[in-house]
């Protein structure tokens, strides 16, 4: 690795650190009024950071960040007003109470949004509704809490400035800026640490493919709620700082303008960059300050509106995104290796070794069975009273013409569909109403028809995240990922971004991720779709070996592939079990041919 690569790796630490030090140096040399104004930009940057956590990393555009910011500000300031006499410090109280209340409220809202499994648009709108509701209610909300008076639209006055300890004098503008930069810097580095760690990786996976993340055994909703609460905590912290900065808070903090300014900060700086929102807030704050201060009667609103449109159109990645791209051009292309990748060939020995190790660690294969399973969509019944049992030993194939209910049956067993009746058991345990991730922990491994890989992650990290879900140990997960990489023959491509792989390679990577889970029963939905003949042969080999160690269920309509599996075959038709046996028996069965060819008698 040369200097430039190291710098690229550590850009998120080095540049912010330099910026913070420069900011601190400047804070003591600039005019007090500028220090004062710049303090608010840093606070807005912190608010932007909270959105970047939940939007740029978590993939959910929340318009409730200003709600947590405002509530954090109010709660923190009430605490500061009433409790400053203890320890003689205002910020100890305002910052901690602001942060905790922001996190708790965000967590509560997150529980509603994520556990109701709302669509992305609905989630955004609900978060917006929350902010609007607060704005409406707070206009006439009046209460006296100790010495703090919340007076509806007249707001809350007399919020103490930043009093560090023992004193009654608040910091002067320079001191306040220094303190704010330090708090924001600390918040940034904590966030950086969290977001580059395991939690952050899982959050990235949730954004990239939430279903796959759950199929790897992660409790995605818990991660989403935690991430949202974390962002709410940062927003609450920013709100408490804002209260101390302005000495005054009122309901306009919940207004539409405030709510929609935050995404601008994030977009200007660069979505998902964490440091970007600070750049955005300083740029926008500066622009607005300059326009408002310089040209009285200036058209700040007009300019901001046009800037936003241009940004969305032409600078999708923001300032930092553009810089990062520029830097990437100077570095060797990490995806180079994907171009000279050969055809996949399975190392049979390696595979058997992996499967043996898995069996030793996770126990013997488990049977999957369904009893009277029923799934309806309006008048359509894709799974109609299906009772089947899958035992280890031989691969099981589910076949049937289009619309026979094969995939629906599989999805109902996996938990992607909620059954309308019947039971599913895994290794004798009832799992009918279990969550997807707990089924995965019980030993279920699922590969859907389309390759599901985390496009922005490296190949190795894709496998690591799968292995980590089971092992909960970084070292062991790394070892398992390396073994699977070798087995798949993808070692050369370990540092390639998954999206750079060919379709076929992505399928193998996906299968590799399932194997990282050491599943006791494996469900494959049309795994051969889109594969070359050569790849299909390798796949058949893999499935046959797999079936010696675990239960394997394959949904397929490629009859040739099913034949090469040499396993047990079940034919589904109109959501019901139609026939059962091995492939040669079924091929001789007139009735099976009837339904495949659409002949009258049994259609």
């Amino acid at each position, binding site marked *: 690795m040369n200097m430039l690569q190291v710098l690229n790796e550590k*850009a998120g630490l080095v*540049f*912010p650190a*330099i*910026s913070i030090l*420069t*900011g601190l140096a*400047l804070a003591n040399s*600039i*005019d*007090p*009024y*500028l220090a*004062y*104004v*710049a303090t*608010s930009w840093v606070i807005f940057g912190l608010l932007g950071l909270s959105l970047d956590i939940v939007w740029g990393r978590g993939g959910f555009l929340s318009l409730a960040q200003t709600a947590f910011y405002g509530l954090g500000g109010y709660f923190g300031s009430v605490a500061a007003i009433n409790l400053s006499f203890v320890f003689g410090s205002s910020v100890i109280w305002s910052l901690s109470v602001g942060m905790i209340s922001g996190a708790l409220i965000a967590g509560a809202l997150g529980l509603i949004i994520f556990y109701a499994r709302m669509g992305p648009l609905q989630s955004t709108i609900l978060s917006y509704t929350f902010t609007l509701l607060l704005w*409406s209610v707070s*206009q*006439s909300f009046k209460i*006296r809490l100790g010495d703090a008076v919340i*007076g*509806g*639209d*007249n*707001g809350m*006055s*007399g919020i103490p400035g930043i009093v560090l300890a023992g004193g009654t004098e608040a910091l002067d*503008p320079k001191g306040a800026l220094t303190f704010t930069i330090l708090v924001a810097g600390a918040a940034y580095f904590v966030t950086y640490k969290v977001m580059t760690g395991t939690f952050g990786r899982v959050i990235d996976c949730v954004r990239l493919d939430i279903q796959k993340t759950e199929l790897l055994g992660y409790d995605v909703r818990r991660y989403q709620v935690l991430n949202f609460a974390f962002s709410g905590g940062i927003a609450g912290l920013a709100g408490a700082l*804002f209260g101390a*900065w*302005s*000495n*005054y808070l*009122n309901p*306009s903090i919940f207004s539409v*303008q*405030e709510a929609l300014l935050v995404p601008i900060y994030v977009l200007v700086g660069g979505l998902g960059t964490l*440091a970007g929102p*600070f*750049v955005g807030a*300083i*740029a926008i704050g*500066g622009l*607005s*300050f*300059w*326009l*408002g*201060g*310089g040209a*009285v*009667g*200036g*058209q*700040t*609103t007009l300019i901001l509106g046009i800037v936003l449109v241009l940004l969305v159109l032409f600078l999708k990645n923001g*300032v*930092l995104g553009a*810089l990062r791209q520029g830097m990437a051009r100077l570095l060797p292309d990490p995806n180079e290796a994907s171009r000279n990748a050969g055809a996949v060939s399975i190392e049979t020995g390696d595979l058997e070794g992996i499967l043996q190790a898995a069996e030793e660690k996770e126990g013997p294969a488990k049977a999957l069975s369904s009893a009277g399973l029923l799934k309806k969509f309006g008048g359509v019944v894709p799974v109609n009273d299906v009772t089947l049992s899958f035992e280890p030993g031989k691969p099981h194939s589910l076949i049937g013409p289009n619309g026979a209910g094969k995939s629906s049956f599989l999805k109902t067993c996996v938990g992607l569909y909620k059954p309308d009746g019947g039971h599913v058991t895994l290794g004798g345990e009832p799992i009918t109403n279990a969550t997807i991730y707990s089924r995965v922990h019980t030993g279920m491994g699922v590969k859907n028809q389309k390759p599901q890989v985390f496009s922005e992650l490296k190949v190795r990290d894709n496998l690591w995240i799968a292995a980590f879900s089971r092992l909960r140990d970084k070292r062991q997960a790394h070892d398992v990922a390396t073994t699977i990489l070798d087995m798949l023959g993808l070692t050369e491509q370990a540092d390639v971004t998954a999206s750079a792989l060919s379709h076929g390679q992505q399928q193998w990577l996906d299968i590799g991720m399932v194997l990282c889970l050491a599943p006791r029963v494996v469900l494959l939905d049309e795994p051969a779709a889109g594969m070359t003949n050569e790849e299909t042969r390798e796949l058949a080999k893999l499935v046959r070996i797999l079936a010696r160690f675990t239960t394997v269920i394959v949904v397929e309509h490629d009859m040739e592939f099913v034949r090469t599996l040499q396993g047990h075959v079940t034919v589904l038709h109109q959501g019901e079990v139609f026939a059962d046996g091995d492939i040669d028996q079924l091929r001789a069965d007139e009735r099976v041919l009837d339904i495949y060819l659409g002949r009258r008698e049994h259609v």
Partner: protein
Amino acid sequence: MKTRAIKIGLLASVCLVTGVQAEVKIGAIYDLTGGLNIYGIQQNNALKLAVDNINSNGGLLGEQIQVVGYDAQSELSKYTQYVNTAILRDKIDALFAGLTSSSREAIRPIVRKANIPYFYASLYEGGACDKQTFVTGTSASQQLSVLIEWGIRKYGPKIYIMAPDYNFGTISAHWVHEFANQSGGEVVGEDFLALTVTDYAPTIQKIQAAKPDFVVALPVGANQTGFLEQFAAAGLKEKIGVVSTNYGSGNQQVVVSPAAGKELIASQGYFQQVENPANAKFVEMWQAAYGDDTPIVSGAVDTWNAVNLWAQAVSQAGTTDADEVIKALESGMTFDSPTGPVQLSPGSHHLIQTIFVAEGDDNHGFKIVDEFVGIKPTYEDQKCDLIENPDLAKHFTPDQN
């Protein structure tokens, strides 16, 4: 990570605007853009007019008055930011700023700490009280003390209140109750509306069910015109009178259709139609500077009064020193304003002024039907005596005290 370059660029540009320190410098922070600029632009225009007028007559203490202007963009956080900038950087001697109550409340603690005389020029709910703050607009109790009695005399004793659900509305409603009791009236119903309401059908049903003699209608801006249109179209104007303390404070009489605006009763501290020499001169100057497209609102004249009262106090004190100027302002200062003679009440820092009652005509204008000279800010005078108690810094509201 480009933070650095941007910061330095900004620094440079901000430093450039920092001018040479003038002898007499005032800050003007109004909403020149955004939803509140109907009022903000007029306040700012009036301030410029007053300053130009003083400067062309030889200035103040032999110096020209310099104005440092900022556009608060109808955003509250901008007020905090610009007030501090004006004080810390521009070192202003007095501040003229704000329209909404929240902007005033955001400003007051800052000017109090910096000890800068601050003039708030807008009609408002009343009760603001501290040493640095001077209010030249009318307070709710000042306007309503006249209007409710007048309404009862004209229409009858039964009153319905429809008001926005925030301080201006709820405090005004309190005074309506109080003055109704004093004048033998009776409040037969009230409805508080969220700021986002555009559909007044429910309120209109409730008004009809309560059968009042007149309605006190207090919603702000475009909300008010919507209500008046719907009220008139329901054919209620013949049966029920409508009076207001804020109708005509912005552009409502121009926006509202003649059919809905005719015969509406408004009470204000100023209407452009006021007849006196001071106003004739003022209107002439205004129209020479800004044309006659838009009617002059009370907030503009309140600002004009504020600048002139401050200038008078500076002249009297012979210095711009805050303590001296405030002392001068507390000396029972009077001024011949376009609204008629006004006097600054020393204890409460509010104006004793004329309250006009006007009736809407069918050409987007007003006809003054009654005037009440020398109406005192009774509530503020009673609660707030800054001569006796100079350290008071409160916002009195009738429901809390």
